[in-house]
């Protein structure tokens, strides 16, 4: 063992401190884009999806500049026109402008999806994450509530509610959709909270003396943002689909422009049989493209937060294991 001696004689000053740590890369603002979001924005699927959704949002926002809302609903004599410069997407049997329906319908569908998503996510986060973390009786109770909501079928409930309230407004729809979908979201978040709560950093925060509220919202939540975002997007597009579906069945608000209502009228007037493909195609495409965009965003988030779905891009992760 004599050979090892030289290293033992190292002066304490060299031996003890670690190599100095370099400063973190300087950032201009205090705001930090979380890693998962940066990765998501770099994911081609998510990028494409986001571009589509943002395009739709832009269309909805610019609607008043593009075309008058009344053209989407009011009858005119200019009916059954194929797409032309005057009527970009053509007109319906009653002479409504299909372009106006698509553009103004985007406003409704997106606002509804957003609203439903926000309400459902808020409920799911508070109840799901809390239940998962606290556990015990609270969890059992909240789980029961969740289960009850979980089994309520959305569409029949909406049919009942709209009949009962005599209103088919967007707000009602959004509320009902959110009420039936939050449970679904809460399930996902609760499961995630359950796996996170046994992680040592949560135990360590407990030992440090953090309160339950702070642990749930300050320590647990920041690690679940990508899951929450995914759940939000999910509710967003389910809400759009459910809404359009109800309207298609004739349970929508007939006097307001919307994609589902447009499709409803197209069926009622048997436009397809008369060769008026445009009154079907454009509202249908609008729904399809929006949902596709949201699905791509979801897939992007999923790929980023689940490394197994990542292939070539997982270089950093790979490197760390390259020991």
């Amino acid at each position, binding site marked *: 063992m004599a050979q090892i001696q030289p290293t033992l004689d190292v002066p304490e000053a060299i031996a003890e401190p670690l190599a100095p740590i370099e400063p973190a890369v300087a950032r201009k603002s205090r705001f930090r884009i979380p890693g998962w979001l940066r990765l998501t924005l770099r994911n081609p699927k998510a990028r494409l999806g986001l571009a589509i959704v943002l395009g739709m949002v832009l269309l909805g926002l610019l609607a008043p500049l593009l075309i008058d809302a009344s053209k989407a609903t009011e009858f005119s004599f200019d009916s059954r026109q194929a797409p032309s410069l005057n009527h970009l997407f053509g007109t319906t049997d009653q002479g409504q402008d299909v372009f106006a329906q698509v553009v103004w319908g985007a406003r409704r569908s997106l606002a509804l999806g957003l609203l439903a998503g926000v309400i459902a996510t808020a409920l799911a986060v508070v109840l799901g994450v809390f239940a998962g973390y606290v556990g015990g009786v609270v969890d059992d109770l909240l789980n029961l509530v969740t289960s009850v909501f979980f089994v309520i079928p959305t569409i029949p409930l909406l049919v009942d509610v709209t009949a009962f309230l005599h209103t088919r407004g967007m707000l009602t729809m959004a509320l009902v959709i959110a009420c039936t979908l939050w449970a679904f979201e809460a399930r996902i978040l609760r499961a995630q909270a359950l796996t996170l709560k046994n992680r040592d950093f949560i135990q360590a925060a407990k030992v440090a003396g953090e309160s339950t509220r702070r642990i749930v919202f300050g*320590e647990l939540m920041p690690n679940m943002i990508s899951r929450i975002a995914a759940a939000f997007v999910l509710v967003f597009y389910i809400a759009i689909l459910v809404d359009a579906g109800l309207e298609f069945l004739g349970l929508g608000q007939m006097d307001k422009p919307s994609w589902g209502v447009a499709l409803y009228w197209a069926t009622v007037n048997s436009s397809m049989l008369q060769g008026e493909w445009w009154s079907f195609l454009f509202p249908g495409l609008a729904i399809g493209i929006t949902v596709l965009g949201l699905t791509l965003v979801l897939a992007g988030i999923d790929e980023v937060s689940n490394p197994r779905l990542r292939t070539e891009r997982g270089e950093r992760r790979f490197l760390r294991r390259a020991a």
Partner: protein
Amino acid sequence: MSEAALEVRGLSKRFPVSTGVRGRRRYVHAVDDVSFTLRRGRVTALVGESGSGKSTVARLLVRLYAPTSGTILFGDRDVARDRSRRDIVRYRSQVQMIFQDPFGSLNPAKTIRHHVERPLRIHEVVRPAETDNRVHELLRTVGLVPPEHVAAKYPHQLSGGQRQRVAIARTLAVEPTVLLADEPTSMLDVSIRIGILNLMLKLKEERRIAFLYVTHDLASARYVADDILVMYAGQLVEQGPVEQVLANPLHPYTQLLLSAVPDPGTGLAAKRVEVQKGHASAAVDPPEGCRFVARCPLAIDVCSRVTPPLVEAAPGQSARCHVNAPAPAVFATAS
């Protein structure tokens, strides 16, 4: 001997396991009647294999679990009975824990500053205006320099050894008198381990902290610890001054552990260890008798009938073994 910081008497923890179709409720005896004392300025090593209950002991002491029975005397208070959050938080301002996995014990979404700063704020250790200074001072204490740079980083930007130092700085924030270190080096590279052990020694000497060092590594236990506790299947099977126990282990399990440690210089062939099958995990409703009996080369008739008591067989050194540490009274009480 220095004053006691934490006195543990008859500490037990049982976890319920799922009951059979019509059976009574069964329990895993994770920790079974464990007693020891942690003293200021001393390191006590708690050694055992995975599943032996050693980590459970640490988690009981910091009250992450509530003990099934037994007392934890801190000063003149029995903290095992504390139920209110206020009492437990007050206790934790004195007794802190270092977790095993430095990759799991820091919140990936938070900066290093957050981790060190929170305990300062929760326990109101310093005035808010001095928080930053104290954070830097703590980081410097654990050898993370320059502290200004370290504080702004996120856990994933540091190496394992550096993270473990952050975890230690966080526990030091409350100026604890007792630190429970749950295998603090087992996830780290060999070359980094010594640094963490040296830091523990420094803290023990400079701050007179009472350490419980939970580990499965006997060599590192010898390096940092003054006393050693050996745990097997939920029970303490041997305890005493570390040098004395390792030089002259009484319990056959301690002997087995000792012989299994890689020791450069003797080839594998030179010291073959014959091991009987079996493991050190805590059992469900264990029967009466020595828990090591199935693997023990010394087992005699009485071993499978009577649980051996912890008997002081050499000055300061006790063991639970009918053969090497016989208790004169055991046969009388058993009959």
